[in-house]
């Protein structure tokens, strides 16, 4: 039993890392621009499909790098054309806009790539498990965790030490003052959005290797991302990272004892957090009340 628990906690961390990747992208966009991006799952799907299309030409590793970049570019176009007009308005509107956008993306991907799932193979170098004992720690999952760790690490370094990063962080707290200080806020927002979407696209590429690639695959991953943000605390990226890992572990642990509740438990967690400590674990008081 203890071994089972240990396995599931470890496994939960692996799943949680993936949730965290999605959630951090979502959180970035939410913090700076106040936009609730319901289409985040859609961008994940785009990332996965683009990688699938590019792999025959660029190979797995090439697609891994290029697909998220392309997705981010699409994100920038969307931000420029659509989302930019909603800044400053009630968050309801951005939520609805991205809700509609999600419809368009799902239907669009179905139209372009077909309704049937597409087979995605990972390079054989990554497939073997760590050992007989730890069979669930496959090379691919380790690779996923490593990728997430590297990318998130780079993101934190970017935010901490580069000028742009400082501006983004400052903008999260008080965008008006940042603008008053002469920073091109428009460009900053676009860049921030692009980074968030890049993470979604990357998540999509990684997901393709784990899951079946089909137009509705983003749906099941959107809600856990929101919950990770709420649990970890709106406004705090570290919190979101923590939130993602926590819900992954919670889900894994619940699977041992109450398998059918392993998805419901994350909603219960969110409800608890919201009622007891609404700002989340590491969130700041007063953000969105």
């Amino acid at each position, binding site marked *: 039993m203890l071994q089972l628990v240990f396995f599931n906690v470890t496994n939960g961390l692996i799943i949680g890392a993936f949730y965290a990747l999605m959630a951090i992208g979502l959180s970035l966009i939410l913090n700076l621009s106040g936009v*609730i991006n319901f289409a985040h799952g859609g961008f994940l799907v785009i990332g996965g499909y683009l990688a699938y299309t590019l792999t025959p030409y660029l190979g797995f590793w090439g697609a891994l790098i290029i697909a998220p970049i392309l997705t981010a570019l699409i994100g920038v176009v969307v931000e420029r054309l*659509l989302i930019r*007009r*909603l800044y400053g*308005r009630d*968050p*309801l*509107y951005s*939520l*609805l*806009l991205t*809700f*509609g*956008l*999600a*419809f*368009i*993306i*799902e*239907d*669009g991907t179905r*139209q372009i790539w077909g309704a049937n799932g597409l087979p995605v193979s990972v390079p054989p170098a990554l497939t073997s498990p760590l050992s007989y004992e730890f069979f669930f720690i496959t090379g691919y999952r380790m690779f996923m965790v490593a990728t997430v760790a590297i990318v998130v690490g780079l993101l934190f370094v970017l935010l901490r030490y580069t000028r742009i990063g400082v501006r983004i962080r400052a903008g999260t707290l008080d965008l008006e003052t940042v603008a008053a200080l002469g920073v091109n806020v428009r460009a900053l927002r676009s860049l921030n959005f692009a980074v968030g979407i890049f993470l979604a696209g990357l998540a999509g590429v990684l997901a393709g290797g784990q899951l079946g690639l089909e137009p509705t695959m983003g749906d099941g991953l959107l*809600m856990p991302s*929101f*919950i990770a943000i*709420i649990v970890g605390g*709106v406004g705090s990226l570290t919190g979101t990272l923590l939130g993602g890992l926590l819900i992954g572990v919670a889900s894994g642990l619940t699977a041992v004892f109450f398998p*059918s*509740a392993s*998805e*419901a438990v994350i*909603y*219960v967690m*969110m*409800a608890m957090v*919201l*009622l007891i400590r*609404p700002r989340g674990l590491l969130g700041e008081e007063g953000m*969105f*009340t």
Partner: protein
Amino acid sequence: MTPEQGKRLAVLAAVWGALILAPYWMPLFGGYTALGSRVLVLGLGAMSVNFLLGFTGVLSFGHAAWFGLGAYACGLALKFVAPSTPFGLLAGTLAGGTAGTLLGALLVRRRGIYFAMVTIAFGQVFYYIAFQWSSLTGGDDGLRGFTRQPLDFRLIRIDLLHNDVYFYYFVLISFAAAVAIMAVILHSPFGRTMIAIRENERRARFLGIPIELHIWIAFTLSCFFMAFAGALYALLNNFADPRMLHYSLSGDFVIMAVMGGMRAFWGPLFGAVVFVVLQDYLSSVTVNWMSFIGILIVLIVLFFPRGVLGLLRQRRMA
């Protein structure tokens, strides 16, 4: 009577005239009576959400929970307690409304995105319960085994099950009753206070208005209306299924309210007409109807945020 009042009365007469005569003019345009019933029920749902959204300024994105609860309660009442349509409606309304009242007390301290997210969370919890407790709710297959019962008035018996037109009028009367109560509330001092809270919460608070209490009451009322709509929906379909609790349905209601015009009383009904008819029609002609609906939502949000009725009102004032 001022020309303004005269105009309003004319609009009201037009709307009700169209609704009353619907089973007769709808088929001419490729409609069918069941579509009309669906529009009314979902329209009532949208108006219930708008009670909170448009008139109090509070965004609940999980309101389908009360809708679904009402539906399930109505179905369970019809199936296990008594084969009576009015009783089913009552049971549904009370169940959903009471649940909303109790949970509302917990929720009212939060606002904005938090409020929206908590409501989604609770909605999803109910969704999972409906899914898992399959011995009671039928799980994924939904709650079956009940149908609308005829209305028995001793002298006349109205068959609601086999006659779609009769059922449509039943729904219309129920709709009218709910809407009348809503209108009374909104024109009362309480309703004015709700609008004050929407306009500027801080100022309202400074005026000494107990904000949380008012929001809780508004929330409770909207839950009762929502549950009533849900019960009607169960009667319309003769089943209740978990999707009636899902946040995507909540999203649909909000979209209807925004599309029609959040600030107008009839706005959400208008939005429901457009949304339901459009979805029904589009999904028959093209497999890409989702894209069209998505594009419509995007256009509405970007260019017509006040909805259709809001636009008309703007033109009048401009």
